[in-house]
């Protein structure tokens, strides 16, 4: 047993929206899940399976109605207040009124970093996502993929140990998407961050993660957890036999889930 706490520990989590009202919904039912430090894990499932809800519970953006969520051994809300995680959404959510560099600086401003430190870090992050020439641009002047890279740079700017991503590449075209996946894996390897990634794309889940959590809908449950061991990912990985086998395995797990519901 390691003394270091897991990055995320979810035990017996049940989430009910509008409890006691006619529109009561049980979004999650008895979820148990542990994410090891440094792991890349994806949550996949049909819409309504509660994967985004689960991500928001880890982020403590929703009040938890049952069970326990711990991040780095702390209550999730304490981890939020300690800024233990960074977050990225399907919409890049950049602020039009800030330049690209100042968007990345925003969380650092909130944490009271000095101006020089903020400048330097924003520059480092822009280099990390290969947008070094765009520091002074407005977000509207960037393509969708570039905006999403800025959002990732912003989420990682304060070096959180955990990165939470809610379908961040969902609005991108296929080629940009594959490119962004490779970039994310490179950044993940360079920064040694734990990643929890929500997606509805099977190849994306298999390509990115070491474990794929397959969820079933109404109420959201963990139906299956599939380990993926494809070694260091390369572009050729996408065309390998082992990759297709894993894609098929996840697809069958999802089919089984749909038959049940």
């Amino acid at each position, binding site marked *: 047993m390691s003394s270091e706490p897991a990055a995320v520990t979810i035990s017996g989590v049940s989430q009910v929206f509008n409890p006691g009202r006619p529109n009561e919904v049980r979004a999650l039912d008895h979820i148990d899940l542990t994410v090891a430090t440094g792991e890349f894990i994806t949550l996949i499932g049909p819409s309504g399976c509660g994967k985004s809800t689960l991500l*928001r519970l880890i*982020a403590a*953006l929703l009040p938890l109605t049952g069970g326990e969520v711990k991040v780095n051994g702390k209550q999730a809300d304490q981890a*939020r*207040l*300690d*800024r233990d*995680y*960074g*977050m990225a*959404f*399907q*919409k890049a*959510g950049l*602020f*039009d*009124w800030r330049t690209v560099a100042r968007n990345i600086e*925003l*969380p650092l401003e*909130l*944490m009271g970093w000095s101006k020089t430190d903020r400048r330097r870090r924003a520059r480092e992050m822009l280099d990390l996502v290969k947008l070094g020439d765009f520091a002074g641009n*407005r977000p*509207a*002047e960037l393509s969708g993929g570039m905006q999403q890279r800025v959002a990732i740079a912003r989420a990682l700017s304060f070096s959180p140990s955990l990165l*939470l991503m809610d379908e961040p590449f969902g609005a991108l075209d296929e080629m940009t998407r594959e490119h962004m996946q490779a970039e994310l894996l490179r950044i993940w390897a360079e920064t040694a961050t734990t990643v929890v990634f929500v997606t509805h794309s099977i190849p994306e889940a298999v390509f990115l993660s070491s474990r794929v959590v397959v969820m079933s809908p109404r109420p959201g449950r963990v139906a299956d957890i599939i380990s993926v061991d494809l070694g260091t990912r390369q572009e050729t990985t996408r065309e390998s036999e082992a990759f297709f086998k894993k894609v098929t395995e996840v697809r069958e797990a999802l089919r089984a889930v749909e038959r049940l519901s």
Partner: protein
Amino acid sequence: MKGSGNQLTASFSPWLPVVVAGFVIFGGWELALTIYNPDGFVLPPPSDIVASFVDNFDVVWQAVKVTGFIIVTGLVAGVVAGAAAALIVTRFRLGDEIITPLAVAVNAVPIIALAPIFNAWFGSLSPRSNQAVVLVLVFFPIFINTTRGLSDVEASQIELMESYAAGRWRITREVRIPNALPYFFTALELATSLAVIAAIVAEYFGGRQDALGNIITNSAGLTRYDDAWAAVLAGALIGFALYLLIQVAEHFVMPWKTRADSS
């Protein structure tokens, strides 16, 4: 050389239709009156209006100062009150429950019709009465639009700020207020023309004799329509000047908007 020529055309082109339209409208007006109504009695030709404007410039300028003061002070007070109410309403639920129905109720009242009553409250010669009319009229569009801008924020941007453990006031400052600025400026343009109308109409019922509203009613009563039109022209010029001022302010306050538009 060719490039600079194109630039020149480009910088003139937005004004060209306006200038042409002006020539057509005022030229046509002047021409029609010369042909059909040489007396120019009820509707004087533009040349008479401009002549009256120039001849009575001292009187008109004094009236512009008096009425302009009412417009600007009433406008500023209404804008501050409207924006402050919008902030309170989006920040506190109780504020929303009290202020919003009240604002809607007040807006349903024909404010201009209150001008004589305000005169009785504040005294007919006090500027307070006409300022109050302008304030109340300006308040509503500013309040409604700013509230919408403060609330119509992308949900993920709020979640993002919460993920950084930002407080509510910080979220208001970093996300809601910048998001509301385009809505606010749209309302401000609307409010400016309302303020000019409100001040002049309020002056029909009271206030100082050397104000635009009184010059219009008095001149029209004496059938000196060219003088009345000269005062209307002065009112239009105040409105136009304020509009330009807002355009400039918009450019400085929201550089990201102007830049996105021009690219």
